[in-house]
């Protein structure tokens, strides 16, 4: 598949709504791979530090895939066999995206990532040790509505990922192929989350959970204690007027969910990290 084909598969932040076909998704996974010549081409182009910082953040996010799986599977979501079937292939696809990013980054100068601060480390360790206990009991007491919260957060994560992929191709056209692959792969993820949320939001408890989940939503990777790196990467990539429309489209899709909060989810989070956060960014905005 050539880069152009991949880009036409979905340059929109929110792909056109379609019924999700779980059987087709399971049968035909779309792991993100780049051909050897594409890797060689990217290696020869010397990607700028800002782009590498974004790619490094994406890599770290994909490599935290099993953290997300852990947090979801200890909850009542584990009984939802259609959701767990989806997650099986979804994890496979995300694993290969992480590997592709890793291979790409290994061919370039290492990206310096500041170590997480003391409080971030403590918070991470507490979450690691306590969440399986607290989360298992708490969410199982709360009941099946929590699944809608996972799905809403996952939809926001995926839309943020698509905004990032589109901007990457705009900032660095050499990455059009990678960006197109990510969009091609994640369009079915969006369709799954949206179709599940449509069905589940018929219940009032699910709508309440959707609202709460989106109010507390954090940019992918923001909870892992590397917000300074994330802030720098986001400011570099998204701190441009062209981004506003992309973010607004994602926010419109999230705002259309029953129970969604009135505020713009991605824009609020972006502002929290980039405008109000400690970015320490020396990266030039494109």
């Amino acid at each position, binding site marked *: 598949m050539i880069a152009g084909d991949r880009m036409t598969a979905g340059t929109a932040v929110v792909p056109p709504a379609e019924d999700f076909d779980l059987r087709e998704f*399971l049968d035909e996974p779309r792991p993100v791979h780049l051909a050897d010549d594409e890797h060689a081409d990217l290696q020869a182009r010397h990607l700028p530090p800002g782009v590498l910082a974004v790619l490094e953040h994406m890599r770290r996010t994909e490599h935290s*895939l*099993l*953290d997300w*799986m*852990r947090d979801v*599977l*200890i909850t*009542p979501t*584990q*009984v*939802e*066999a*259609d959701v*767990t*079937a989806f*997650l*099986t*292939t979804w*994890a*496979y696809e995300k*694993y290969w995206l992480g*590997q592709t990013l890793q291979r790409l980054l290994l061919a370039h100068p290492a990206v310096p990532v500041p170590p997480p601060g003391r409080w971030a480390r403590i918070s991470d360790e507490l979450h690691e*040790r306590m969440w*399986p*206990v607290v989360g*298992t*009991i708490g969410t*199982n007491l709360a009941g099946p509505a929590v699944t809608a919260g996972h799905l809403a957060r996952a939809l926001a994560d995926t839309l943020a990922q698509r905004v990032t992929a589109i901007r990457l191709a705009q900032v660095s056209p050499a990455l059009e192929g990678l960006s197109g692959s990510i969009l091609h792969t994640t369009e079915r993820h969006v369709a799954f989350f949206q179709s599940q949320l449509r069905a589940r939001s018929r219940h009032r408890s699910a709508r309440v959970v959707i609202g709460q989940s989106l109010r507390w939503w954090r940019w992918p990777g923001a909870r892992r204690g590397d917000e300074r790196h994330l802030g720098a990467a986001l400011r570099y990539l998204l701190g441009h007027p062209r981004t506003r429309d992309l973010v607004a489209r994602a926010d419109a899709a999230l705002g259309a969910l029953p129970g969604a909060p009135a505020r713009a989810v991605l824009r609020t989070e972006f502002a929290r990290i980039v405008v109000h956060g400690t970015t320490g960014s020396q990266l030039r905005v494109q």
Partner: protein
Amino acid sequence: MAFDIDRFTRTSERVQWADLDFTTFADNPLGEESLRTLRYMCEVEYHTVCYLRDQLVTPSRRSADVGAFMTMWNREEFWHGEALAHVLGLHGITVDYDYLKAKRIKLGWWERLAPLRQSVAGNLLGQDFIAVHMIWGAVNEWSAAAAYRRLGAMEPHPGLTELLRRIAAQESRHVAFYATQARSRLSGSKKARAFARLALQRAWDPVGSTIMDDDEVRHVMAHLFGGPDGRKEIEAIDRHLSRLPGMEGLTIVADAMDERGITA
């Protein structure tokens, strides 16, 4: 010999069955005993995501190799469930996602709290817990591979035999990962050896026994491992296990059969 995790992930694929001829089931269907066993296998394979959940709350998740393996393993096992559900479907037995959801709900609170128990054990043991996870996985995968081989030998249906051979071949790759990891991690830690031995002696039960009724467990074990040929497979698993560091003399699989009255 080291296990090449990159090669494993690169070559990991769903088990295929579209090329196999199952049309003869119309005239020559599987017997009730085999269908009951296949259903057990199918449900256990589909339950892998819950076994995965129980390991994700332990230090295993943070090991890059183990994490990569678990991602592929979970998908391969899921497809074993899909393949077996297809065979069952040809016999009018439906194992679909609605059924699986109802089954998981029915398992109740004890099963739902499994991550909590695993997490406490993982917190107490730290990195040594990974060795326990690995040796436990090795025994389970040895058992699964043996079960598929036995059923393949017992049911002379060419399509099914080939499907079971393919599944067993994937289970054997899982064995290779678990056993390699277990050997390496056990040899480096006296605490891991002691706890792994204790855990296997006190808590190991045949694969599926935490989610299936005792009657079903007994049926499957007797069907596959009763008689001299079945017992040979059981003894072979115990021999494999006892070659791992600190596991000398363990006969947990044979003991589990004896407890259930399944004799050679």
